[in-house]
């Protein structure tokens, strides 16, 4: 399997233009505010958790940011909707390591699906935070961090 190393692929441009699950959630069970101080990315993730089943029933987001952060958040919400909480944490871990260059989905088993298209970001260290902000914030919402998270 081969991955495109280009950062701004069509999928990313598309999710940037038309972000999915891009709205506030009235009946969320938790939410978290995340910022990337360096470039001013600023998002809020809303979760509706089924605590009994330990499943992410619904997920959405609002905020503003660069194409990478918006597309990453949009794709994350698509990908995690309906996933188990534990699995979501595992995926976070793999994603985070992938963008830092510490995990290579070309060589190792993974649960990232099409999220591997963010692999190219390894080449742009200062942009990894743009891709991972969504994920940190999602985990913050899982952990019910009221003070928010920052990638700084």
């Amino acid at each position, binding site marked *: 399997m081969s991955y495109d190393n280009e*950062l*701004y692929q069509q999928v990313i*441009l598309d999710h940037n233009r038309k972000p999915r699950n891009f709205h506030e959630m009235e009946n969320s069970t938790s939410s978290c505010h995340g910022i990337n101080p360096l*470039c*001013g990315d*600023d998002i809020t993730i809303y979760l509706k958790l089924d605590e009994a089943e330990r499943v992410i029933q619904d997920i959405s987001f609002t905020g503003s*940011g*660069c194409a990478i*952060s918006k597309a990453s958040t949009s794709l994350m919400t698509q990908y995690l909707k309906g996933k188990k909480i534990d699995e979501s944490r595992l995926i976070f871990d793999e994603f985070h390591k992938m963008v830092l260059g510490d995990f290579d989905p070309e060589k190792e088993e993974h649960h990232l699906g099409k999220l591997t298209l963010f692999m190219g970001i390894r080449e742009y260290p200062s*942009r990894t935070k743009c891709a991972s902000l969504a994920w940190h914030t999602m985990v913050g919402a899982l952990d019910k961090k009221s003070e928010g998270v920052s990638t700084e």
Partner: protein
Amino acid sequence: MSDTNTISIDNPILDVDKIRSDFPLLSKEIGGKPLIYLDNGATTHKPKQVIERVRKFDSDEYGTVRRGSYRLCEHSTQLYEEARQKVADFLGAPTRQEIVFTSGTTQSINLVAHSFGRKFVNSGDEVIISNIEHHANTVPWQVLCDEKGATLKVIPVADNGELVMEEYDKLLTNKTRIVAVNHVSNALGTINPVNEITRKAHAVGAKVLIDGAQSTPHMKVDVQGINCDFYTFSGHKMYAPSGIGGMFGKMEVMETMSPYVTGGDMIMQVTLEKTTYAKPPARFEAGTPPISQVIGLGAAIDYLNAIGMDKIFEYEKSLLDYGTRLLNDIDGLRIIGNAKEKAAILSIYLEAAHPHDIITMLDQDGIALRGGHHCAQPTMIRFGVPATARASMAFYNKFSEIDALADSLRKIIKFFS
């Protein structure tokens, strides 16, 4: 569009090609493309005259200053004080003793907020800043006002990026202790009416700090003309080494101030019970200073003087006018900040693309701009944008580099639309 370009070729204000040959970094390539460096507001490159002066000093002349009486040390102390005189002359300060060396503008402003502020700003007093300040000229005053129970007031900014002076008039009261504004805004390029700001502040008995981080590299400064009480600057933004900066402070004001950083050299006598403080500037220069960097700063000032600050300002102004016209022609591009008096800074906002994406794309073309809030979040909030891409020019930039920027921006807009 090639109009201004032609003018600059036929009747050059500066010999930019010759100047560029002094700056080793400007001939660098980034990913196979020639570097186009337009982040001079963040930091500037150093001419070989500065780099070599520091190398020579460290190799042949280095010694500590003030503390020793052997000749090596006397020599470096003399060079150190000569550099102080150069700074004084460069800023139009009456005496060398009114120049304090610090590690940069941030440290200088903190010094004033601490040593003047904590002493003279009390509960119920007021401090005035503006809506277009760098964090370095915002946070120290917030902290001070918080601690003292004083009120922080903010001069608003009009849509064109100019301060609303009628509002400033209303903010001034006899409780105003200090007014702190920048000479040139790093986010918008606005040149503020610092003479008027100072005069009016003095009329109500307030002191005035002018943050000159963005003015000292680009225009002739005259602290006596402005009549401000403090004027701060950073060496690394004015073609000098990193790690050095300073401020002008009126002696009569500095003499009333408590020390900031304490330790060696800022004291007259230390016993375990009591310490008496030295006179300014020594009072504010505790510890071993950035010796080699001070020498480098002196060399940078020599370099700037040799070109002439008036010429530098005139040339950069022509770059700004050219760039403004060029970019205003681009659909979907907005320049934030269009003050009548403006330094060569273009804060760019594209409908189609986020500044961070713009920076990464420009970088692919070898063009270095800064994207973000430029440590001026309140300014970004005021203009309703999360961030901008900022082109900040220096006298070593060429018109053709502005052309390249415009071309690249057009490409980006197309790509993201």
